[in-house]
């Protein structure tokens, strides 16, 4: 049974990847890093539920096997299908965002890093539905960088998804989606939380493909 579930997870994973490639011709732009298996935290902008599968799809197989998206438990455990796709296909680190829960998200994240996994996180915390390119970052990224300073924090910009699938639309448009990986950053010695988060946010914005009008 366990074997069957793993097999099904791999099939579903491949199907998602092929679907993403066929519809959006999604491609990676390795601007600041090489596609080599190193422990990294990819922090990305978040405008749509398809952000995470897009990043996941452009990673080469060896990197995809070791990467774990950090995702909200309330979303991924809502029904049986999601509970299969989130934890088993994408191998998500599920964190509970409710304040009353004892189990602290950062412990789970640090544990995943200590296992050697790379992570995908969305430091804005929520999907960005505003016209601003980025919402203010939550402290999580800073805490990770502080706790595990050797891990590369890679700014990762996912472009065009708002146009491919705007909120409230049903049919996705097959436009080209680009995932840009920038140069990694680290928390500097003595750097305050706000300074670091500001720098991280600027590093992410710098990965946006040139603005077109």
């Amino acid at each position, binding site marked *: 049974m366990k074997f069957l579930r793993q097999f099904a997870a791999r099939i579903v994973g491949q199907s998602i990847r092929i679907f993403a490639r066929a519809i959006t*011709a999604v*491609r990676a732009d390795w601007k600041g890093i090489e596609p080599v298996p190193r422990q990294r935290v990819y922090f990305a902008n978040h405008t749509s539920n398809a952000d995470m599968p897009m990043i996941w799809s452009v990673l080469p197989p060896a990197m995809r096997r070791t990467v774990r998206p950090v995702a909200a438990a309330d979303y991924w455990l809502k029904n049986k299908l999601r509970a299969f796709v989130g934890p088993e296909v994408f191998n998500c680190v599920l964190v509970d965002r409710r304040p009353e829960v004892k189990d602290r998200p950062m412990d789970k994240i640090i544990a995943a890093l200590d296992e050697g996994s790379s992570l995908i996180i969305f430091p804005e915390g929520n999907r960005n539905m505003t016209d601003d390119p980025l919402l203010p970052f939550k402290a999580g990224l800073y805490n990770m960088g502080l706790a595990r300073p050797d891990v590369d924090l890679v700014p990762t910009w996912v472009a*065009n998804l708002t*146009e491919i699938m*705007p909120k409230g*639309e049903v*049919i996705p*448009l*097959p*436009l*080209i989606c680009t995932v840009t990986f920038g140069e990694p950053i680290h928390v500097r010695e003595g750097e305050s939380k706000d300074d670091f988060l500001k720098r991280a946010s600027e590093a992410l914005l710098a990965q946006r493909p*040139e603005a*077109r*009008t």
Partner: protein
Amino acid sequence: MNSTTADILLLAFGSFGILIALTILGEILRARQPVHEPNPMLDTYMTRVQSWWGMVAFIGAALLLGKPGVMTLFAFASFAALREILTLTAKAQADHLALAMAFFVVLPLQYIFVGLGWTGLFTVFIPVYAFLFLPMVSALRGDPQRFLVRVAETQWALMIAVFCVSHVPALMSLDIAGYGDRSLLLIAFLVMVVQLGDLLDFFFGRRIGKHKIAPGLSPKTWEGMICGVVSAMVFGALLAWITPFGVIGAALMAGASSLVGMFGNLVVTAIKRDRGVKDWSHLIPGQGGFVDQLDSVIFAAPIFYQLTKFFYT
């Protein structure tokens, strides 16, 4: 094996022969090149030759499969081209449904009409029906901001990526007296003369080009263009045996297509410059996207189609 198939195979092997020669030439140049000195010209040339191998293989296979093969290949090319262009055009959420219809309704219908050979419909379907109907769909969502820009850019995308590209397979529907089922060969003729003209335009432009056609836009020169068009005419005359045009007719048709293709390339370059991109996409490694690869054929196709229809049917 009928004579059309035999001719396609002959053309394919001929093209492979030329490609083998071009590949060997490149490899010799590379072998003579010191390892540590990079040569971007040579690299560009080699990636270009590689993508031609792919093109000859794909178009050759499609032609051998006959009508279904050609229709599938060009429908896919249209889809990829439309995706490349619409990624860069102005749009708002109000256009979402209209754009989805461009991909999933207009494009398939255009190819169905071409496949059925409904000449009266596929030549007007996009410029009349799609151009009038899609803006209505956008307008219904009630967002007037930059409406004209959004509509105009979407229409240009459909014109280039779907209307023009579909005129390549449309050549199969031409009913030319005494030519029978050989109209497949017109596709090979068009693609080959236009691509060869481009290659020699590039080559002579580098060698003897002095006077730029559109300074600030493209390195194309008048000298290169004249040499390219003349070469296309000579090559067209040599290929006259696969056409219904006769030797002089074939040379003139080849020259006209090549000339339109070269100016079409300028138009495409201007659009890319306007959007600040070098290539339309990264679909073909080192070569950009479909539109980069086929821009001159795309512009030449409707003109070639109309000229053939006017003079030979």
